[in-house]
């Protein structure tokens, strides 16, 4: 009987696990490994949920011996139908959500990219053809991922930052683009929106976002140094906000947290590299669990 463990696994990883994991802030110090564990959690929950249907088929076959059930709508048949219904609904929801989120995101990016390309000033900061400079006094920097990717800066950013700080910001944004952090974020956004609202954990999505920023920050640190990167963050954060701009509050002092994470620090006394190995092993074990359960069900 392997259906119960699969369902338990799916439920555990979908509900309590993300809430618990968001509390373990020490693991932010190994951002790459932490992101891998987050991904493994989501993938495992999905795999476990989807595997319960095939497991149910095997279970029913075994229980009733090798008897043809074609058309017989007895107890066993009902289990199979139910299991496939559950798996089918989960899969359908996931796919439709992926389609909707992906289409939305790409439409917004395309419209914004076209607009930015039209409105940008002629100067190319850093001589980079993907960088667009906007005539605006508020320091803002962001990237538009995708096939035609852009790094967008405002004139205010250039005015406020020193050369090395600007380099740190550009490196940060390019790190997002090169590592395709957007795909990672898209995956988590899809999973987040696909699950029922009760299960949804905003804290875990916030945590994933933070980890992605920390990864990009560390790329900036490798190029510009920790202090310069921190100064860039402070300069960007310390700018006056123009009236009428969108204030997205909820992040708290996430920027201060990022500054604290620019450099390697031990996780509970353990070197973050050693801790990372343990975290990768944990992630691999997680993903293997539903696979092994399904294999065992066949055996």
């Amino acid at each position, binding site marked *: 009987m392997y259906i119960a463990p699969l369902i338990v696994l799916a439920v555990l990883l979908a509900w309590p696990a993300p809430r618990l994991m968001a509390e373990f802030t020490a693991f932010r110090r190994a951002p790459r490994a932490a992101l891998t564990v987050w991904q493994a959690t989501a993938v495992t929950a999905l795999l476990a949920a989807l595997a319960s249907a095939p497991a149910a088929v095997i279970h029913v076959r075994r229980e009733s011996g090798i008897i043809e059930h074609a058309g017989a709508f007895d107890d066993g048949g009902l289990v199979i139908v139910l299991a496939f219904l559950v798996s089918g609904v989960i899969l359908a929801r996931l796919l439709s959500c992926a389609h909707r*989120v992906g289409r*939305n*995101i790409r439409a*917004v990016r395309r419209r*914004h990219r*076209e*607009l*930015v*390309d*039209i*409105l940008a*000033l002629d100067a190319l900061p850093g001589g980079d053809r993907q960088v667009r400079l*906007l*005539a*605006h006094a*508020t320091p*803002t*920097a*962001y*990237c*538009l*991922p995708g096939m035609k990717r852009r790094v967008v800066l*405002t004139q205010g950013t250039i005015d*406020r*930052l*020193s050369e*090395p700080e600007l380099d740190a910001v550009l490196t940060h*944004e390019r790190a*997002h683009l090169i590592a395709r952090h*957007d795909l990672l*974020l898209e995956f988590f*956004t899809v999973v*987040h*929106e696909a699950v029922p609202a009760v299960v949804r954990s905003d804290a875990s*999505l916030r945590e994933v976002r933070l980890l992605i920023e920390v990864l990009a920050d560390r790329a900036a640190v490798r190029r510009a*140094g*920790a*202090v310069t990167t*921190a*100064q860039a*963050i*402070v*300069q*960007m*954060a310390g700018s006056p*906000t123009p009236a*009428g701009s*969108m204030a*997205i*509050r909820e*992040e*708290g*002092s*996430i*920027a*201060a*947290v990022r*500054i*604290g994470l620019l*450099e390697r620090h031990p996780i509970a006394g353990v070197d973050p590299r050693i801790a990372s190995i343990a975290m990768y092993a944990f992630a691999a074990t997680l993903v293997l669990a539903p696979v092994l359960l399904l294999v065992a069900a066949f055996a």
Partner: protein
Amino acid sequence: MPPTLRNRLGDLERAVLECLWASAETHPDGLTVRQVHDTVGVERGIAYTTVMTVLDRMAKKDLVRREREGRAWRYRPAASREALTSEALHQTLGELSGGNRRSALLHFLEESTPEDLDALKAALAQLEAAHPTEASRPPGRTPRT
């Protein structure tokens, strides 16, 4: 990258808008398609009808405004470059509900508040204390506090 149709249209829209901005003072009533074509289209070897299409497209995107004058349209930029840029920045921020927007554009920093700034400066001071040699900010910009 070979120029796709969309790329070429983007370049053309850019050039058209530049042209309208540049003539905003001398032609406060705007330019006709013919005038825009003379400035932007001829040197690029672009047909009059293409310029017309582009202007029509830009009017639908609220980049330019138009008024009918006799049988022709007169086009003006919808606003200055600064105003349109400001609009673009805020529109994109407001267009989607939180999660989706933040997946579409990856910002270097979300907005922060004065209280946050104190926490920030404390975090920076701690880092600078650990690296006394790197701590001085290059001169010529905002003075350090």
